[in-house]
């Protein structure tokens, strides 16, 4: 008896495990892959899907954290600059000190965490709009990254990070490690956001920060945590970025990544106004964007054309979400 009512309450309180947006995205990705498989037979082979998954990983991974930030009603446009700092720092350590895999990953994550802490403290305790602060810190991070670069590129990066890369060292049973790690972290984040009090607090802050504060949520500490988490995942994603590249890292690393991540998040159905969103949708959004990029290249079209499709997908995905929201209100 009590178990039944408890289950009933649980159903009422918790949102459904999969949103409408995610079902639509799965459908779109399936259709796109089917169309690509028909037009270019080489698409549905391991040699084409594996690089696609590897390339999806960094954007999806940062996207998980960005989803949480956007759920709290914030945004972080400094992740491009932060990726630059973490990857050049790690690359320099790999070249100069020849550190091993574990140290490199820890270093990158620590660096990202510090950058995230800067954003978090300024936003949570400076009480300033997140987009302005992160526009500012984006410039500061880029300055920092370029200073570490010194002049020119970082050359001769050893293959220490091949565990995350495109090569045969980067796969287990044919699945790239980078994508596998992203999948696990997304799953953990999905469970945390949906089933723990701490996770629900993020939604409460995004819905109404004042009400959340009065309900006993430590709003500032939660916001700080969201940005530190972003930094940490940026650090890990930077290792993926280095592993994907050649042995050379140039100064354009991370440039424009903040917009790619935000695009994946909004295509995934997270509301930019805060209070609503899902990390699963973000993963699917990142996969969709990367499929488009890969598809455009394989069809032999001009690669810059993929940006046009990304723009159209954002409009269609968010437009569909707006229509559904309107229908919900009308009901």
């Amino acid at each position, binding site marked *: 008896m009590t178990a039944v009512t408890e289950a009933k309450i649980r159903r009422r309180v918790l949102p459904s495990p999969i949103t409408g947006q995610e079902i639509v995205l799965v459908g779109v990705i399936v259709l796109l892959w089917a169309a690509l498989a028909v037009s270019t037979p080489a698409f549905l082979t391991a040699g084409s899907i594996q690089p696609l998954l590897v390339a999806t990983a960094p954007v999806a991974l940062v996207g998980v954290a960005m989803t949480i930030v956007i759920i709290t009603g914030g*945004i972080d446009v400094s992740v491009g600059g932060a990726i630059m700092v973490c990857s050049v720092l790690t690359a320099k350590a790999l070249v100069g000190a020849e550190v091993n895999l574990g140290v490199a990953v820890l270093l990158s994550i620590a660096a990202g965490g510090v950058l995230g802490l800067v954003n978090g403290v*300024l936003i949570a305790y*400076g*009480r*300033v*709009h997140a*987009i*302005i*602060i992160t*526009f*500012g*810190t*984006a*410039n*500061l*991070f*880029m*300055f920092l990254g*370029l*200073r570490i670069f010194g*002049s020119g590129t970082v050359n001769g990066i050893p293959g220490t990070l091949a565990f995350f890369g495109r090569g045969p060292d980067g796969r287990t049973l044919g699945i790239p490690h980078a994508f596998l790690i992203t999948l696990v972290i997304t799953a953990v984040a999905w469970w945390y956001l949906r089933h723990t009090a701490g996770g629900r607090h993020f939604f409460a802050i995004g819905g109404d920060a004042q009400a959340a504060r009065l309900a006993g949520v430590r709003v500032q500490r939660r916001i700080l945590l969201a940005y530190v988490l972003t930094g940490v995942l940026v650090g890990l994603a930077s290792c993926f970025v280095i592993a994907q590249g050649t042995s050379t890292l140039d100064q354009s690393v991370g*440039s424009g990544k903040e*917009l790619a991540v*935000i*695009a994946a998040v*909004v295509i995934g159905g997270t509301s*930019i*106004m805060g209070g609503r969103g899902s990390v699963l949708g973000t993963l699917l959004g990142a996969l969709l964007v990367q499929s488009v990029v890969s598809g455009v290249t394989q069809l032999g079209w*001009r690669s*810059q*054309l*993929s*940006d*046009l499709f*990304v*723009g*159209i997908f*954002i*409009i269609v995905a*968010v*437009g569909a979400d*707006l229509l559904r929201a309107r229908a919900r209100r009308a009901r």
Partner: protein
Amino acid sequence: MTTVAEKREKTDFVKILLTQRIALLAVLIVVVVVTFFINDAGGYLTAPYDFDYMSASLISAVPLAMLGLAEMLVILSGRGGIDLSVGAMVSLAGMVFGFAYGEWGWPLWLAILATAGFGALLGAVNGFLVSYIGFPALIATLATFYAYKSLAIVINNQQPISTKPIQELFSLSRSVELPLFGEYVPNVPLGIFTFLLPTAVAVWLLLARTAYGRRLYAIGTNDVAARWAGLPVRDTRFKAYVYAGLISGLVAVVTVGQFASARPDAGVSGNGMALPAITIAVLGGVAITGGIGRVSGVVLATLLIVWLNAGILLAFVGNEGSQYQLLALGAVLVFAALLNGLTNRRYGGTTS
């Protein structure tokens, strides 16, 4: 021992600096210019930092201030108004200008008019999505940023247009001697008079002297109240994006002139043009929540950044200067944002 009156005078001064953004910017400009003059006199700079140099550096103020004004218009309209696509609009409109003037041989005035009109059309797409469909501005302009950027590159197969008429446009960015008293002051870049001043005056007239301007401030301050007061909220917000597109079209012409070539990546290469433009607007006292902002603030913020950047360029050798410009821009923006937060808590907001 300070008397009560002296104390009050002091707090009044602090209050004016914090609440009047224009006063703060003016003080900062003086500090920056004096600092570089002192450094110059001490011989620490690689080239003289004088009035001639300051005047010549104003050439980079033209696109920056114009796009800052464009951002101000959309941010003023409220409900999270922002335009990430201005750089992409500059690229795409610049290509259209390149075709019209460089390839099809249209007369200059017609090509400029067509480019401005095309920019307004691109802005209208943004405005339609934001105002009539209800997209959050950040998302709508992120999408059009991608779309316009892609179209600008694809439209001419990644090739810039630099035919003879386009190359001759470089004369647009030369410096001229002012009439009457020109021999006593440094020469000023022509673009200031042909593009920046007319735009600044037009935007000022629009905001301060027309009913449209009052409506824009009204919907930015309180969307719902404006609707209940019977204002055409959607139409007003829509037009703010159209004006931003129109200004971007004019900036496209300036940029083509400066590069002597219509480049497909003119507005999006490197950091792009949108980020600096938003920075200028925020630094100039435009509240990101809408409804607050003035033309004079944006213009002064541009002067501060341009003269600061010009000085930094002389203080360092090689490309270090351009790196420290990033540091300066970021630090100034964070500083301004924290100051805004402090002002809001102490005095309940800036008045400008």
